[in-house]
């Protein structure tokens, strides 16, 4: 009798293969195989559309040697990192403050749900369209931002060839810092609402009795925030940091469409993936080198993720010290 049940179970369990089969087939065809293919391609000198079915030679690490000495690649890495950083730091900062205020039971703010829904909204918009929209809003010479600045009396001072100085509209996309600032601003605009929602969920999941006992012990809201909310939000912040970093290092649509598809002005808003696109699909069609860029980006993301994890682990000492300090204060 027992034997039969087990036999029946195995027969039923065999159905598992049928259920996961479509996933497995599609995964291996469209994700696993292309990844291996990319790895292999990066070690060849293959050019053009034929890839590994055409004429090519294995050239070892030549593409990677070129990659680590390519100042345009490192320039792109620098651009990506700067624009991500200028978006992420204000994003986490603003979202932290907002989420703490919005979940503060003492403040009892009205319209919280509506506000959260409004600031999250940009996150769902088509990134390509948002890039075009901001390109128009910051347009030269008659975009709305310029019109607004001029009505306040702000002009760009441009020196003409004959030495005379004239006032005219800002041509934002000719300045590196303005262009990078606009990219960072768009990213911030699209993502801080999302971060607020994630952080608020993190705060909700903190055990309510911790806040209550802190209140009983006479902690004010700054102390509660500093010693309870922030330390316990650390895992959520770590999660946000890692996902934002992985996404940010692959930033594409906005820097690609905001200016000339080559990361102008002067390639200074060109991210690594835009550079990969430029190499593979514009002009030279150097797929082997573009594959090396993909792998380079992956290695950078992987290294950064490791740094973040180990960097955060050391902080646990700090957290313990902080908890001890809090215990000391309460004892007083």
């Amino acid at each position, binding site marked *: 009798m027992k034997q039969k049940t087990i036999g029946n179970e195995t027969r039923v369990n065999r159905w598992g293969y*049928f259920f996961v089969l479509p996933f497995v087939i599609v*995964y291996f065809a469209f994700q696993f195989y292309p990844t291996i293919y990319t790895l292999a391609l990066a070690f060849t000198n293959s050019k053009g559309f034929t890839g590994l079915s055409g004429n090519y030679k294995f050239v070892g690490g030549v593409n990677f040697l070129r990659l680590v000495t390519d100042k345009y690649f490192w320039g792109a890495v620098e651009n990506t990192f700067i624009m991500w950083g200028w978006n992420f730091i204000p994003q986490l900062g603003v979202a932290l403050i907002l989420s703490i205020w919005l979940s503060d039971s003492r403040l009892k703010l009205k319209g919280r749900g509506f506000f959260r829904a*409004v600031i999250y909204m940009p996150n769902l918009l088509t990134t390509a369209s948002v890039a075009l929209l901001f390109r128009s*809003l910051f347009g030269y010479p008659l975009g709305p931002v310029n019109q607004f600045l001029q009505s306040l009396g702000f002009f760009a001072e441009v020196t003409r060839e004959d030495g005379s100085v004239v006032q005219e509209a800002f041509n934002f996309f000719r300045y590196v810092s303005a262009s990078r600032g606009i990219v960072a601003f768009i990213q911030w605009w699209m993502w801080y609402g999302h971060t607020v929602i994630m952080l608020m969920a993190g705060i909700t999941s903190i055990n309510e009795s911790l806040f209550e006992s802190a209140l009983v012990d006479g902690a004010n809201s700054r102390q509660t925030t500093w010693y309870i909310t922030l330390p316990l939000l650390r895992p959520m912040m770590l999660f946000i940091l890692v996902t934002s970093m992985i996404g940010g290092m692959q930033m594409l649509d906005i820097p690609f469409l905001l200016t000339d598809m080559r990361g102008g002005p002067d390639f200074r808003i060109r991210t690594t993936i835009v550079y990969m696109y430029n190499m593979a699909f514009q002009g030279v069609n150097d797929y082997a080198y573009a594959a090396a860029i993909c792998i380079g980006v992956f290695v950078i993301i992987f290294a950064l993720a490791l740094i973040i994890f180990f960097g955060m682990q050391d902080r646990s000492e700090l957290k313990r010290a902080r908890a001890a300090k809090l215990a000391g204060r309460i004892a007083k």
Partner: protein
Amino acid sequence: MKSYSTALNIKRLFIYILMIFLGLLAVLPIYLMLVNATRTNAQINEGISLMPGGNAMFNWKTLTNRQFQIQQGFFNSLFISLSTTILSVYFSAMTAYGLHVYKFKGRNFLWGLILLVMMIPPALGFIGFYQFVAQLRLLDSYIPIIIPSIAAAATVLFLRQYLSAILSFDLLDAARIDGAGEFRTFNTIILPIITPAIATQCIFTFVGSWNNFFTPFVLISSTKKYTLPMLVQMLRGDIYRTEYGAIYLGIAVSIVPIIIFYSVMSRYIISGLTMGSVKE
């Protein structure tokens, strides 16, 4: 005690002002887009206005006159997004169910693989993906855009978490005793009870697919098959250089459906965001 509540009120006032500012900041670019989409070029050049004009029809004609098939693009995007959503969510639910219910060889390996895939940036294999598609002679076709979404690791992860929270094995045993086949159990019993999770995943998959610019941009070459974000991207070109109203209108066509959808579903979408990630 009174000074304490005054301080609280001042803080509250300050926060309300900040909330209004940030709320306006989220809405203003979109509002300006809508207003400018209804104004003439002369009006747009004249200055900012918060009042809509009456030129929307003319802008629409300017936009669509120049071989710019935005209706076609709209339906292309709709077709791709709908098929992607249906296939992706259905097969992800199947995979999640298979992984959760059956104890077969390689189950743990596959689960580990799915967790690993979530960590790998999609950009890694992009060149290989493109060359593979080129060799299958599937460039300029929707197949390589739609079919790969069947293997959506994040959706599987989400649905499996949901399943493990609510599914009782007694229900399955009851269905089996009543003689329902395994697929029939899945389709007629499991799918209905995980509808909330499925709906959430449908929303996010649909929006993600609707907004996807890069994959179709690289793969599709014939104008008739362009998706909406690809068409919007064409507005950068020279033919629309001075037609500001038409440009704003074109951008609006891709954004407004999402905003309408969001304004109806926002509560659902926001709660769906954190459904899988945080245990509450």
